[in-house]
């Protein structure tokens, strides 16, 4: 069953907090919960100087915009880097697979990108630095009608 956006958001909040708490990453994820005050611009360890590129695509189930657990782990890492970066807007590009109508899929792509945005904001990323755009099913990552192609196309790309 599909959750409403509000419910989905609520769930994302809870899950975000849970993910933050249960994280065993060595990096500092404690401030993930500090969502009322923006994180201070502390010159913490510039450990990401020679950063390994993070995977910048997250995937979704059919007609869904809820973040999968593996997605949340990846987004927490992205959030850490975004907080450390001082400039630049990040584009969150939402996409859908070929199933269903084009205009509805445009809305679905936006809902997915919004879910990623909301999660990143909960992790302390400044919302003003995040731009959401949806391409719906107009720019597939992979052509074809196989389930694997469709799964690759239900995505949000972090640029």
């Amino acid at each position, binding site marked *: 069953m599909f959750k409403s956006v509000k419910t989905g958001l609520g769930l994302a909040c809870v899950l975000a907090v849970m993910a933050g708490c249960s994280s065993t990453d060595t990096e500092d994820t404690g401030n993930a919960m500090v969502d009322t005050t923006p994180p201070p611009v502390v010159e913490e360890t510039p450990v990401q100087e020679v950063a390994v590129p993070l995977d910048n695509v997250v995937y979704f189930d059919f007609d869904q915009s809820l973040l999968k657990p593996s997605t949340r782990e990846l987004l927490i890492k992205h959030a850490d880097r975004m907080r450390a970066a001082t400039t630049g807007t990040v584009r969150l590009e939402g996409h859908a697979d070929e199933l269903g*109508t*084009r205009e509805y899929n*445009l809305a679905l792509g*936006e809902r997915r990108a919004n879910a990623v945005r909301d999660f990143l904001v909960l992790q302390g990323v400044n919302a003003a630095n995040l731009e959401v755009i949806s391409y719906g099913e107009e720019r597939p990552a992979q052509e*074809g009608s196989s389930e694997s192609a469709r799964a690759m196309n239900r995505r949000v790309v972090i640029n």
Partner: protein
Amino acid sequence: MMKKTVSLLFTTLLGCVLAVSAQAQLVVEIDDGTDNPTPVAVVPFDWSGSGVLAEDVASIVSSDLRRSGLIAPIPRTDMLSFPKTPEEVSFRDWRILGAEYVVTGRIQPQASGYLLSFDLVNIFGQRKVFTKQVTGGAQQLRDIAHRAADEIFEAITGIRGAFGTQMVYVQETQRGGQPSYALMLSDIDGARARQIRRFSAPVMSPSWSPNGQEVAYVSFETGRPAIFRENLRSGARQQLTNFKGLNSSPTWSPDGSKLAMVLSKDGNPEIYVLDLATGRFTRMTRHFSIDTEPNWMPDGKSLVFTSDRGGKPQIYQLTLATGQVDRLTFDGDYNARPRVSPDGKTLVMVHRSRGVFTIATMDIVSGRMRVLTETRLDESPSIAPNGAMLMYATKRGSKGILAAVSLDAGVKYSLPSQQGNVREPAWSPYFD
């Protein structure tokens, strides 16, 4: 019998503005017809000018009638004679062939084009039904043929012909390893396809103005979706929206004064109506779900749209005066992108049935749903102005093609593109 001359001035203007792209044409393939189509013989038309005509006009008339599914043209090779006038028609010969009607015609050169005089002869009744005339410019032989087909079709079936209408669609091709998108305009039989505009970013959701002079569409050329309107005669173009988030699904009101659309500037997709004279946007829906794909009822008093407010995409009706929203579809777990028949009685939509996306109709009063298509990944239905057929987009193999089906599902044909993927057909209104 009364004679009638039809002017084709509008199409002349349109033809001048737009360049023809021959390799972009769509080719008709008939898949299915009705059980008892009326046999009609369209005899090759007599040409009294010099040289050879650029088009076989009788053959175009014949193809038009055949595509309707309601008429079965008799092949030229079966004809025993080629009468030029009703007086030369041998009723006995044509009765042997089973023809119920015979069409004869004569084309004469005129100062700036052609004059077609054509006759419809009832073989069983042994009488001439009518003689009519159509004139057109030097580049309008196809328009002349479509007008003649309209007259013949209406006389035989009682349904107004729509063979002279056009369509706009989206074509995607590869150019230098990059996808290239074009908004295309063609005759409704796929012929004379020409490019309205080319884009390096996606273009989608073309919608005709009710007077047939403009299209509205969504283009990503600015880096985000924005709604444009473009005049097909002059090429003049205007960007109508540039809001944060979605700017999508424009559809013209029946009186041409407003555009319904979807904007997500409030946080999630909502239906808006733009008054084109004042530039004022009015928000019509207030719901945290996806509300999209608005389309007008013919009386302009309400909109039908897709919403997942019930958990899955279903079709709802919004009464503009009161803001009241009523759910229309209950059959199946995915019903979207509604379009309304010209008489306001039938909804066509994308319907998921057993996991397959098809085109379905629903009688609005009874709620009875009927699946029309057996292809897969069917989407973007667009109804002809006479309400007899609809055009939609589907897949053949991995290729996007256009196809048509009658609203009673009896007639089917497809229009595969010779180049690239085609999708999102929008059937024009009548041009007069």
